């Protein structure tokens, strides 16, 4: 290993007070986190393929089978009868966001176990900004996956109004933020990667099935009033409805309010959980060293 002179490696012995970070520095930080998230996603081809295959299996196989069994009446935002494939497409978009949000939670637990998380957390930028950037990076990757799915669905004949693909973008963004924030909050509570199976059983599956992603709420209400109430208490329900209405250029204000509120709630919880002075991380021994 060379120990040759290193010009200007280090500033001064006793540094002068440096100027605070400006907007440019914050954007550089955000860009770096987004680029890393994208690179990690691209390097993990299996993750990309499975994220695409999962909703397509539902669309190609499940929906084709259930089309004959499950009728969908005319309910807002639909003005005519729609095919079952069309009905579940917003739910499948939500499913991609849900899995991706939980995947980002998984990656945070993995990063913490592997030590990569420390590199993020010892950055001089405010902790809340780092977590927000990490969330935005996760949402960026999620939305790219949703559009990849929508392209394949379009070729399969499942089409939304052309402008719907544009209108749905803010809904996808907000729903993605909510689910990523939830994932981040959950990641602070999970000490080991093995515990992630619990997330699958207690968050992803109940969240997905107790929602209007696969069947309209009125059908659930007919089948089980208790399940209907559970669906109404499920934030994912509102994410799906927000996306569904957005495809048709409409805003479901209740869904918008719930999703925005839950985003703030989950994000606030995650920031507190990862705050070294108040968070759960501090109370757990897991620095990865043995000294």
């Amino acid at each position: 290993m060379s120990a040759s002179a290193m010009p200007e490696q280090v500033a001064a012995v006793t540094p002068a007070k440096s100027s605070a970070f400006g907007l440019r520095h914050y954007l550089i930080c955000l860009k770096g986190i987004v680029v890393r998230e994208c690179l990690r996603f691209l390097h993990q081809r299996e993750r990309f393929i499975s994220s695409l295959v999962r909703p397509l299996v539902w669309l190609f196989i499940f929906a084709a089978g259930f089309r004959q069994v499950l009728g969908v009446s005319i309910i807002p935002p639909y003005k005519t009868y729609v095919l079952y494939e069309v009905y579940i497409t917003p739910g499948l978009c939500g499913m991609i966001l849900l899995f991706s949000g939980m995947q980002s939670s998984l990656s945070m637990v993995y990063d913490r176990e592997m030590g990569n998380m420390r590199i993020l957390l010892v950055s001089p930028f405010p902790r809340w900004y780092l977590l927000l950037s990490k969330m935005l990076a996760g949402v960026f990757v999620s939305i790219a996956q949703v559009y990849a799915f929508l392209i394949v669905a379009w070729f399969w004949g499942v089409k939304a109004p052309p402008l719907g693909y544009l209108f749905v973008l803010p809904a996808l963004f907000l729903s993605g933020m909510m689910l990523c924030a939830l994932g981040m909050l959950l990641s602070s509570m999970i000490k080991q990667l093995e515990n992630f199976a619990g997330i699958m059983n207690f968050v992803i599956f109940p969240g997905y099935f107790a929602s209007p992603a696969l069947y309209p709420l009125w059908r659930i209400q007919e089948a089980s009033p208790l399940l209907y109430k559970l669906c109404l208490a499920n934030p994912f329900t509102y994410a799906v409805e927000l996306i569904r209405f957005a495809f048709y250029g409409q805003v479901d204000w209740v869904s918008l309010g719930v999703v925005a509120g839950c985003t703030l709630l989950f994000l606030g919880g995650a920031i507190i959980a990862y705050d070294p002075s108040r968070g759960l991380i501090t109370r757990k021994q897991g620095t990865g060293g043995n000294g």
Partner: protein
Amino acid sequence: MQHAGTGKRGDEVAALDVAGVSHSYGPKRALNDVSFSVAPATFTALLGLNGAGKTTLFSLISHLYDTRRGSIRIFGHDVSRASGEALRRVGIVFQARTLDLDLSVYQNLSYHASLHGIGGHETRQRIAALIETVDMQGRQHDKARSLSGGQMRRIEIARALLHRPSLLLLDEATVGLDIQSRAGILATIRKLVETEGIGVLWATHLIDEVDDGDHVVVLRQGDLVAKGKVADVVKASGAGSIRDAFSRLSRSEAAGIAEISP
């Protein structure tokens, strides 16, 4: 207990000032009223056996954990109250490997640069210089996964220097490396102290990494049991060498365990 802290020299601000720091994990006390300081341009070895509290101390200094009792200052900036200012001045090499194995060497370094707000052009220049410094030319675009343990450590040191810190913390940086890699890394760090005036806190349990001219801080089960220049610590402990001194201090730990064991 020795009192030969390596702290402030005249009106010079200490690179690192740890004052009365305690930390617990639930009922388990990991650090107990630890105080010492590291002056700029000095090499301070933080000695202690496994479980002595070195890694906990590093986590507090790097603000992974908040300091609940006592205070930690980096060049006068309180780590809890002004963590941004403090963390800008410190480079850290953690004990566990922290490179992203799926990314290339360059991507790992570039990611770190962005976390310090360093832009593209400057990042490229600094990475090129540091890759040369750690003798890893030609490996920039290799995946971190393909590097040996020693090479990963060199990249982690380059990464810790990327934002030009004035204080460098290394937690058991040579654990698991062969003798040649260990010597090379240690020589580079000592050179940085001499030529660049960086203050270094080097946590280790390998006593042969300590030189006569170094400062040492010795932890034992969370207690600070000695600090000062090597010669002073050796003299105060009544030992013939720093190896013997460390051994005696460690024996005290063994005796302590023996007393409470059935």
